[in-house]
């Protein structure tokens, strides 16, 4: 593998389960040191893509190279250099916290002495040193996720795959996980993340692809995507119970673009305050007006006509 060649390179990658096409010909290239994201709603094909990259699910079509190797022929060799944090915590309830790391490390054939030392360091890193000898079951959701992340790092992987790393966690636990993943990025560890949270994608990813129905609908850095597919600001208008059809006709020409959602109208504009003033001027009386910066949610809405989390 030469310098600068992508660590992960997929061309027209396909995954089929019977008649169902989970991943429908995607092209992806992940470079060393970057944090790469798959953003999309549930069922978009992110996890299937992730399982193919993790070499536990053979591709049905297209080509895939990971670390310059072929996932079907060299599965064990590639997996030896990957760290995987699955969507569902799959920790071993029969073992203690530290045993979850030491037992797992043996699957990579690491010598016992190194295993012990590294397990202690990793528990320190995910702030679980005090719980080292406890059982896993009583740990909180956030602690379990951090332990799973530590487990994914036990072989000092070249690439870490994180499938929905903060789904199901409370806000405080999420921030702690994000902060640890940021530290990891600072150490230069390449990360691939799937998420259906736009804030998570914006926080963590250098570059991402937006997926929908197994296809990639957009690709770029979070800020670039927002600039390309959305305006700088958005005004969210709510009108209580009054039907939005009648309102939206009167908003024609306000901002650059309008989106109607079941409960509100979004006005896309470079300057949100100006657009909000224009709404007032047209004698419309919304029950609430919110001016905010555009997010990836708006990009997704624009590209697919749907929201990420329904």
């Amino acid at each position: 593998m030469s310098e600068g060649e992508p660590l992960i390179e997929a061309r027209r990658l396909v995954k089929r389960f019977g008649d169902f096409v989970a991943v429908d010909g995607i092209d992806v290239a992940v470079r060393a040191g970057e944090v790469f994201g798959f953003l999309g709603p549930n069922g978009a094909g992110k996890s299937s893509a992730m399982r193919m990259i993790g070499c536990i699910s053979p591709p049905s079509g297209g080509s895939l190279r990971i670390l310059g190797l072929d996932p079907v022929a060299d599965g064990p060799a590639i997996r030896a250099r990957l760290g995987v944090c699955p969507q569902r915590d799959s920790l071993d309830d029969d073992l203690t916290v530290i045993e979850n790391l030491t037992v797992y490390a043996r699957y990579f054939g690491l010598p016992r002495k190194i295993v012990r030392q590294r397990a202690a360091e990793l528990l320190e890193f995910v702030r679980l040193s005090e719980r080292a000898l406890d059982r896993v079951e009583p740990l909180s959701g956030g602690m379990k996720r951090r332990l799973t992340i530590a487990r994914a790092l036990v072989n000092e992987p070249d690439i870490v795959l994180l499938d929905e790393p903060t789904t199901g966690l409370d806000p405080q636990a999420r921030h702690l996980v994000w902060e640890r993943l940021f530290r990891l990025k600072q150490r230069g560890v390449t990360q691939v993340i799937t998420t259906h949270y736009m804030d998570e994608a914006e926080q963590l990813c250098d570059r991402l692809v937006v997926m929908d129905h197994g296809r990639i609908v957009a690709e770029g850095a979070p800020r670039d995507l927002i600039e390309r597919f959305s305006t700088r600001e958005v005004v969210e208008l709510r009108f209580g119970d009054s039907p939005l059809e009648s309102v939206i006709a009167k908003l024609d020409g306000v901002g650059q673009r309008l989106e109607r959602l079941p409960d509100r109208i979004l006005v896309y504009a470079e300057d949100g305050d100006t657009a909000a003033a224009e709404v007032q001027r047209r004698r419309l009386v919304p029950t609430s007006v919110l001016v905010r910066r555009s997010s990836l949610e708006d990009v997704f809405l624009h590209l697919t006509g749907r929201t990420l989390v329904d």
Partner: protein
Amino acid sequence: MLTTLVLSRVAASAAARGQRSTAVAWRNVTAARHSAYWWVLVSGFVEPLLYLLSIGVGVGALVGGFTLADGTRVSYAAYVAPAMIAASAMNGAVAETTMNFFGKMKYMRLYDSVIATPVAPFEIALGELLWALLRGAMYSVAFLVIMTAAGLTTPLRALATLPATVLVGLAFGGIGMVLGTLMRSWQDFDYIAVGQVAMFLFSGTFAPAEGYSLVPRIILELTPLYHGVALIRGLTTWSFDWSILGHVGYLVGVAWLGLSIAARRTGRMLCP
């Protein structure tokens, strides 16, 4: 030159396979060190001993003894004891490769994280089997010590019997691994359990096979437990002829067949 290179690569990959399977077995050793599991381990040893006391000694007082094929006269306890070791090796290997394998896969989801490592699905199954054999061998050692102390066999015969018990475990482990990949739900274990009980009761365990009429006798002589019991009984009572090699060959064949079928099936099941 090329052959040495190829051979050394084959050896290296076999060593890596061995290391990874051992790592899977090691997980069970680690888990077993926690308290609640200890009772389960100890209880597995107690069961064959209870059968020996109840059927071998208690019912044995009513039966008297048996004359073996070569004319050796043995007490009923000495007749039943080797069968209890064989059955215990069967039960241990089958439980670990079917019920426990299924539970760890479907309910504890233990292997979801293991397949993400260099460990291949078949190595997981091998590791579980290795653990079952280890556990079974410990039970066998304990049981053989008791048999020796009770005068049901001699120390040297017991020593010769130990590898045979591992072979029985291996054969049933191979069968169990195939069955483990065929399970659909817990209900299927009822069928396996009945098969085990039927073998346990009729494979020449409690009474000589000669007592059966032709058809049942042929069926029971086809079961792997029959060969396991015959092999182990031959060794603990030290009454055997060349036919003992037939029992060994049969068990080796079953083990090999089971493992090769399981090797193909586990991969397809764990990595769809």
